[in-house]
């Protein structure tokens, strides 16, 4: 791995190869990684280059984080529903298999 811009931590995976990035919406100015959407770029800069980034980048990061938090809440609702569904199906399958002899 090569050293990053001074003052920033070594970005995890910054040495990973990229391809097909001609239509990149934004490129990280610290480690050169291309991103398909501006919010992915903002999240990356604020998280990985937290020590080096400017106030504007910091604010963009917090906005993107907030937007994602709402989305994450609804995502987690679906995860909990999926877990409950899976649990029900497994318990029912065992009840039927062990109790009735149908299966």
């Amino acid at each position: 791995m090569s050293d990053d811009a001074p003052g920033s931590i070594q970005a995890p995976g910054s040495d990973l190869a990229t391809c097909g990035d001609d239509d990149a919406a934004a490129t990280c100015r610290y480690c050169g990684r291309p991103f398909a959407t501006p919010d992915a770029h903002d999240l990356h800069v604020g998280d990985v280059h937290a020590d080096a980034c400017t106030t504007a980048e910091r604010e963009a990061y917090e906005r993107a984080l907030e937007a994602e938090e709402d989305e994450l809440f609804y995502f987690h609702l679906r995860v909990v529903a999926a877990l409950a569904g899976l649990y029900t199906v497994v318990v029912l399958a065992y009840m039927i298999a062990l109790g009735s002899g149908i299966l």
Partner: protein
Amino acid sequence: MTPALAVADAVTPMGSRALGRGVTEVLARAVAHVGGLVDAVNTGTVPSWLTVATGGALVGASFLFTSLLTDHEGIRAVNGLRAVVPTTDGLRRAVVAGTRALGVLGLVLVLVGAAFGSPEPRRNVAILVVWVGWWAGFTMSTYLVGNAWPLVNPWRTLAERLPGGGDVDLPSEWGAWPAVVGLLALVAVEVVSPLASVPRALGVVVVAYSAVTLLAAWAVGPDAWFERADPVASVFGVYGRAAPVQRDADGLGLRLPGSALADVNATDDRPGAVAFVVALLWSTTFDGLVTTPAWNDALTVVVEAVPVVPTDVTAVVGYVLALVVGFALFRALYRLAAVRCRSRVDTYLAPAAIERWFAPALVPIAAGYHVAHFSGYFLSLSPALRAAVLAPLSDPGVPQLAVLPPWFGTLQLAFVVLGHLLAVWVAHALALEVFPGLLRPIRSQYPFVVVMVAYTMTSAWVVGQPFDAPGYL
């Protein structure tokens, strides 16, 4: 097949099937109610398809649970926990010298035992040391404790003492591919030859491996050979990354099991490194697959369809072809998952880069299957191993076998599941490091989870099948 027979066979996986056949009759008489993988899968009235489906559901559920953990800093802190193991220079030197001597002594014991020991496999010190002591016992220690192979490795100890050499350059662009080819070749030899039942055959293979290894290590230098090309050292190196004891710049450290796999600066970026981990995983599956009735039925069809060629030749070609094709299929599936992952999270990382990033997460799965297959085998044959090591060349009589409690089979299934749970955790931690935000890392895992669920169910099906000795060999 009686349950006891099934048990005896269930505890005799890779490299030990023939030995298992020898042990079977003893076990059948002495051990009536031992738990084994087959027992656990077929117990009671739980139909086997439900056991298989439950394995898949557990992996899926563990992914869903992990996706609730979004405290990136917290996950990083848990995986970074480390305690220094205090050592002194004197102690270190003594342990290094002692372990090296023990390794060379072990090799001598195996060679002498193969040449002059009892022809009966379960009384022969070479067979027991190689399969029970080394491939079952020592391998378990590499991922459960720490990788001591660089010290134990007798060929490395010997190669470092050879004068001269080191003139040939091992091209670095070959990466881990020599180790991939070596591993597949060793698995092929192990499956098609009576290495676990005929001590002389084992001796010949050990001598051949020694000759090739010493010559190659002398030519390219021991460091280059054992760190980049030797398949055995590479297997232990990969397993060792899952171990709690890790050696780093500060000496020996104690980590949480598997957490070293989530280190972001430890991904192996050599060409073929991903292929090696996939080959390790596939060889574990392949070894179980060739003992299923379904495999033997398919092989019979193929062998009978080719009437001119001798059946054993067709069969050997069939085994080798299945090994290579299966490896290619596993490799292609992993690539497919990486390509799907790429489009899922809309990243510009190359598919090869994604594969490499998540390859460490495959290691706990391979370790989980290894411990599930070998813990029972190791424990039940360890008294025979002890007797053989204490009196290598005298016939110890009827070998002693330990009786495992009935719940042991369930424990073995739990190891398989534990390996997958650890894999999901490692992949989650790695995803959070490489993809921005929280939702992208979680979504990036969808294709891998699908592949993992399919793989768990396939493996659960394989371990639940009745043992059928590989045919035509």
